């Protein structure tokens, strides 16, 4: 190990999950060249492939590496939270209609195409422009970009490094949710922990919000796969010993490293455009189901955050400011108040950190804190984190009507796949409150509000 491994956890979380495999992965990452200070794991850490999920690692730009497996297949998978002018009382009698309208408007599930069919040229424009492309084509407002991480566009995205196969996969998937753990959820603000920051974020008790969790779809998977293949093939040339081929990497300053970085940026832009379109589709579904005007709905983007990415960012290391390549695989940015990359609207409060829970549990909104800059390269956790494998979850829910169970708990769930619901049962995940407690207690991000789920569309 070149650096130590540091895990943020509580006794309770450590008892609730078997961490042995994920800890091995933390150790593997700590052995990679150019890693700075520590291989980190957030409290939602669990066994992934290559890097652990919930892992954060920063690399020196001269000596360090960039790894497609350290970002993940779903490049810029992330969350987007929208606020509305509605309150629980406005929708409680129409909840089923609303979830049905969302299910109809927002394409979800395996192999389901989107409403848009793009040409290869248009896909390349999306890859270069990100969420701005969607706004330019009428799917949202300019102010949405102000509250999207990095303005919804990753600089240096060059579609030249993206294969034709990836472009083809991107043609009909823009504005689609996908499957597995991706979702769109109607939530209500249930508890406010920090009144002042909640007001800055535009949150109040009882207010209806919408959370979207999706990423770069097949285009991102293909880019990761293309570059992993290439890096494994040429692994011998780098002289880097790999305990697991999934950790295949290239020097950040090498031609191959730079090409991957640029292609990854393209996928990040596709994901931002995708979530922008999903927001537009959600807006239309709300207006149709409730028969209200855009003004009455007042859907605004609180924030859009990515949790599978590698970025070049500045951090203090041993008293000096360094530019580093930070990998966040199942981890989010958590910049504190005053940071220049926090949107102007939130600069005095800190960057919103969005942490979705398991199906039907709801989510947390936190605000980035100063300790994250010195301890975790400006990062916090990204969700609850799985404790149960998908096979275990299916077994334990075999004879259960999951959707009916959720309805009894007051959550309307719709999915195109019964299997997805079984795999995503709440018990398959860690306790979200506990995960957030660790992040809050460690001073990485502070609790602002807790949202409870009312309706959910699963892929």
């Amino acid at each position, binding site marked *: 190990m070149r650096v130590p491994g540091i895990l943020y956890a509580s006794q309770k979380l450590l008892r609730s999950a078997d961490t042995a*495999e994920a800890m091995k992965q933390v150790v593997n990452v700590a052995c990679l060249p150019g890693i700075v200070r520590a291989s980190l794991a957030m409290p939602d850490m669990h066994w*992934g492939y290559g890097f652990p999920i919930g892992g954060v690692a920063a690399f020196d730009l001269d000596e360090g590496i960039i790894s497609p497996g350290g970002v993940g297949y779903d490049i810029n998978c992330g969350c987007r939270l929208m606020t509305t002018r509605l309150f629980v009382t406005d929708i409680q009698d129409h909840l089923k209609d609303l979830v049905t309208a969302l299910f109809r408007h927002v394409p979800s599930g395996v192999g389901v195409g989107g409403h848009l069919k793009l040409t290869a040229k248009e896909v390349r424009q999306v890859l270069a422009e990100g969420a701005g492309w969607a706004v330019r084509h009428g799917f949202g407002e300019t102010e949405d970009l102000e509250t999207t991480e990095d303005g919804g566009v990753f600089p240096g995205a060059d579609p030249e490094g993206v294969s034709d*196969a990836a472009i083809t996969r991107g043609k009909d998937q823009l504005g689609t949710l996908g499957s*597995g753990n991706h979702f769109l959820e109607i939530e209500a603000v249930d508890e406010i922990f920090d009144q002042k920051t909640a007001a800055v974020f535009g949150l109040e008790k009882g207010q209806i919000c919408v959370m979207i969790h999706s990423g770069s779809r097949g285009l991102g998977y293909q880019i990761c796969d293309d570059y992993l293949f290439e890096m494994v093939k040429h692994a011998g040339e780098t002289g880097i010993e790999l305990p697991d081929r999934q950790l295949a990497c290239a020097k950040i300053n090498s031609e191959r490293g730079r090409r991957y970085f640029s292609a990854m940026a393209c996928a990040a832009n596709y994901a931002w455009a995708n979530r922008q379109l999903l927001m537009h589709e959600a807006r239309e579904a709300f207006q149709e189901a409730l028969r209200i005007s855009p003004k009455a709905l007042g859907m605004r983007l609180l924030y859009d955050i990515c949790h599978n990415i590698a970025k070049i960012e500045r951090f203090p290391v041993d008293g000096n400011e360094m530019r580093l390549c930070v990998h966040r695989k199942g981890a989010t940015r958590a910049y504190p108040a005053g940071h220049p990359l926090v949107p102007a609207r939130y600069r005095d409060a800190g960057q919103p950190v969005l942490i979705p829970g398991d199906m039907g549990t709801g989510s947390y909104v936190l605000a980035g804190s100063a300790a994250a800059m010195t301890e975790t390269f400006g990062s916090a956790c990204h969700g609850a984190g799985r404790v149960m494998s998908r096979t275990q979850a299916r077994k334990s829910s075999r004879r259960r009507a999951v959707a009916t169970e959720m309805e009894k708990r007051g959550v309307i769930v719709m999915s195109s796949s019964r*299997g997805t619901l079984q795999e995503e049962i709440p018990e398959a995940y860690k306790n979200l409150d506990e995960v957030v407690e660790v992040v809050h207690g460690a001073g990485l991000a502070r609790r602002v509000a807790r949202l409870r789920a009312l309706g959910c569309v699963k892929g």
Partner: protein
Amino acid sequence: MRYQVLDHTADLGIDITGSTLKSVYAGAAKALFSVLSDLSAVRANEMMELSVEGLDREDLLVNFLRELLNLWNRNRFLVKSCQILSLAPRRLTARLFGEPYDPVVHRIRREIKAVTYHDVALVPTKRGWKGTFVLDV
């Protein structure tokens, strides 16, 4: 050939056992498509051949499965069965039987994001060979 789905927290691990290495590669192809779709509804109407290379046996297995997944992602082709025509440590040629996806006839069980290199293994056993691979789902 037999295959079994393993417990892997976020992803899907598959174990395949077979009397020969060839049968494990062929079994891996079938397991991949069984995860993706209900193969009882897929007919072996069309045949195609596929040649793949790799750095070693394990890399060859990953590349073979990647190419098969590409057949689905790019051509919407479902493989029902597979026959390994030739196998060397770094190259194989397979004959695939299946048919193009028809949404009326075929049910897609789940999206497979990718075939990973994580924990991939091919080991000799008392009765033949065992292969392991992990899918990102």
